[in-house]
């Protein structure tokens, strides 16, 4: 058995783990990252990146399919065809390039990347099984970054045409019928993509509306677009299982309905991988299924840290990255603490939804007196020229001093505005700051300035 020692050992090479590894290497810390699969984690291999690739291909395909005689733009093209196997190969190419990129970044930072499965022996020692051989690593600090996995429904086990998001992103043929169980952001992103590629898609959502974590003003344009794409949305409906004909769904009125489909995608949420790596043997303090951490990502055991999805909501790559970088600096002795005001969240549906900071009802629940301002894209020249005038930008600010607490928006391509939203909040901007900053014309970003002006009571263009 090989024995290694290091100062910092990171279990998991996803966004939390690899960023921690890169930053630690930069800071001169002797660091090892252990990853069972390919570096990059869920996000890079089977999540954010592959899904965005599929969405892009679907958008391109759909765009061309709209260029019929009736196109208002006066463009007509012959009906497009797609070879999904080639699309997937293209996507895999991107993923492979990024895998190599992450490995290269770690190497350049001087951090070792070891393939294999890690299991805790104690709070300072981990056994790594690579193929048949065991390596024992002792470290001063260990970071748990094992991530999360898709929740499986007992009556719809994955396999045999019941897919998790990973499988749905590797199909080589566009399914004729696709039933999506769970109307959250993952299900809607993938469902929308396949609808654009020509699948007959049915969304089955248990609550009374899709994307239940967003307010209905934000989700309304998405629902409208789903309907335009011919997607069937069943709300207050629960999948009950499968039979030879398709998916059995219990509807709001209690009656059962069979959705004819050969493919079922289950996206009912993700759960932390707390059962991995013999973490249970450490008896760490937990918050439900999540590992409890403090504002420095410390667990209840000295020298054991945790970052990313395994530590709780929101389960987003960029939160994990920020936590990973922070832990690396803390281990290097830099005084740091989690003092973020917001974690932006993007839903890559069509149109896209961005949320950052407090929603109006959350501010109300906290007893904060707020003022809000909204700018509809129907008033944006740029949105009109992109055939994207459905949606809006909304700002929530403290009533007394105008400090911006929340920014939300829905609209085509609005994901790129998430940076502006989080900068405004994190920099402590006030409505007066944003409304006095020149925003380039004609862009969707002008909507941010206009929303702030609206909150101040003197919108110019709406």
């Amino acid at each position, binding site marked *: 058995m090989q024995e290694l020692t290091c100062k910092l050992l990171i279990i998991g090479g996803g966004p939390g783990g690899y960023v921690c590894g890169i930053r630690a290497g930069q800071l001169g810390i002797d660091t090892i990252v252990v990853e069972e699969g390919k570096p990059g984690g869920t996000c890079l291999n089977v999540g954010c990146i592959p899904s965005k690739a599929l969405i892009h291909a679907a958008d391109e395909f759909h765009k061309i399919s709209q260029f019929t005689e009736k196109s208002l733009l006066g463009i007509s093209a012959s009906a497009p065809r797609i070879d999904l196997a080639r699309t997937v190969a293209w996507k895999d190419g991107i993923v492979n390039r990024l895998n190599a990129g992450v490995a290269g970044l770690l190497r350049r930072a001087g951090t070792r990347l070891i393939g294999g499965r890690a299991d805790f022996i104690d709070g300072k020692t981990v056994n790594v099984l690579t193929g048949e051989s065991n390596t024992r690593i002792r470290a001063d600090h260990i970071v748990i970054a094992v991530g999360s996995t898709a929740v499986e429904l007992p009556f719809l086990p994955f396999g045999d045409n019941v897919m998790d998001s990973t499988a749905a992103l590797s199909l080589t043929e566009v399914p004729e019928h696709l039933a999506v169980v769970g109307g959250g952001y993952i299900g809607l992103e993938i469902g929308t993509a396949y609808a654009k590629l020509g699948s007959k898609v049915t969304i089955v959502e248990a*609550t009374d509306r899709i994307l239940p974590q967003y307010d209905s003003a934000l989700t309304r344009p998405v629902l409208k677009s789903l309907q335009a794409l011919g997607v069937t949305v069943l709300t207050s409906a629960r999948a009950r299982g499968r039979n030879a004909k398709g998916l059995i769904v219990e509807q709001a009125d209690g009656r059962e309905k069979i959705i004819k489909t050969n493919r079922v995608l289950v996206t009912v949420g993700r759960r932390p991988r707390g059962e991995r790596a013999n973490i249970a043997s450490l008896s760490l303090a937990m918050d439900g299924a999540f590992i409890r951490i403090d504002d420095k990502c410390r667990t209840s055991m000295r020298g054991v840290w945790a970052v990313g999805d395994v530590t709780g909501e929101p389960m987003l790559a960029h939160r994990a990255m920020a936590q990973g970088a922070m832990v690396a600096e803390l281990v290097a002795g830099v005084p740091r603490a989690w003092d973020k005001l917001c974690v932006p969240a993007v839903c890559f549906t069509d149109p896209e939804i961005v949320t950052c900071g407090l*929603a109006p009802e959350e501010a109300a629940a906290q007893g904060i007196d707020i003022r809000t301002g909204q700018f509809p894209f129907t008033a944006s020249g740029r949105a009109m020229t992109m055939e994207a005038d459905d949606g809006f930008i909304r700002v929530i600010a403290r009533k007394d001093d105008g400090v911006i607490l929340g920014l939300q928006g829905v609209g085509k391509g609005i994901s790129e505005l998430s940076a502006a939203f989080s900068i405004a909040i994190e920099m402590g901007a*006030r409505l007066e700051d944003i409304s006095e900053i020149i925003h380039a014309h004609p862009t969707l970003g002008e909507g941010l300035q206009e929303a702030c002006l609206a909150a101040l009571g003197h919108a110019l263009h709406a």
Partner: protein
Amino acid sequence: MGIYTVTLPDVGEGIAEAELSEWNVSVGEPVAEDDIIATVMTDKAAVEVPSPVSGRVVWLGGEAGETLAIGSPLVRIEVEGYDGAENPFPEPDETAGEEDKTDAAPAGKPVGTPVAAAPVEHARTAAADTRSYAQQIPPAPGRKPLASPAVRQRAREAGVDLRLVTGSGAAGRISHKDIDAYIERGPAAPSYAGRSRATGSKDVKVIGMRRKIAEKMALSKARIPHITIVEEVDVTALEELRSTLNGRYGGSRGKLTILPFTMRAIVIAAGEQPGINAHYDDEAGVIHQYDAVHIGIATQTPTGLTVPVVKHAEASSLWDNAREVTRLAEAARGSKAALADLTGSTITITSLGPLGAIATTPIINHPEVAIVGINKISIRPMWDGQVFLPRKMMNISCSFDHRVVDGWDAAVFVQRLKGLLESPALLFIEE
């Protein structure tokens, strides 16, 4: 499943409306039979309204602070297996409302289609999701200092607590310069002595009990021209007597405070001056003088000042009165005082106990004409003609309605109280 409407019950005073002072439930919450739904405030008392059914709250009849008519819908509860047969109110439905106007639909009309509400389980899932969205901003006690991430990090590296730094920017925004200044001058900076400026403010709705108190005080002070007399009373003998009585009977009859003695003195003095134990109805132009002495005892409760009433103090012993004061005070503090306990006083005593100051200017409990304020007892040197003696002294502050009580009469009353309390034997032999 059907919707049951709970109406605001007649809370026992023959009143037409009551103020909603607090909701004990919220929409979407399950409620069990006999759970308290709301607290309503009448002129005198806070009354809790229990739920007659078990179910889930789907609608609330107003906000705290609103005044509702007796009999109007207070809350709607979705009840499993309930067909709405006894429901006197239709659901909150636009069309049903219009129908009522035109057809004058009879009360007891069965409910039509129940409100389509998501099953509880679904609602819970949605709530859980919303919570994760909210977690994007960590909850903080008070406001976070306003500073960019770079400033925050620099402060952390320099060991500076940003809460102590005064921001020079708009909305108190902290800049690098502010941190420089803080580091240079330290927390003992002369201008702010290291304390940050408090910039927040909070609006508190004046509702329920507080509103009643405010209205009552404004009425008394605006309508009644007060004359207040402060006199000092030597209670050395009274305190000796009290101590003796408590030593002898404390175990069996309960402890006596200064209150029952004062009540006794008021009974005697008021008996001699009926104009003091009276109500002045200034609108009717009548003074009602009473034979019975019902003494209001101003009492502090968690929700504010209330005045429970000891009835027929003239007919009770010292210990009876003492026990009644204790019972009423406990009932008032537990919001369990019955309406009868809170009404009908003819004169009032106010005492701040050990906090009681040298003198107060008591406000008369309208429509009464007099109030007796008791201040704290302290040992003071008193000149007996030859030497200073340490005596237990207590001031009394009495206010009178000067419209109907002349200064002379007021002074006579106060002197009588003083005489009785200084020679406590008189309390018992002048029957």
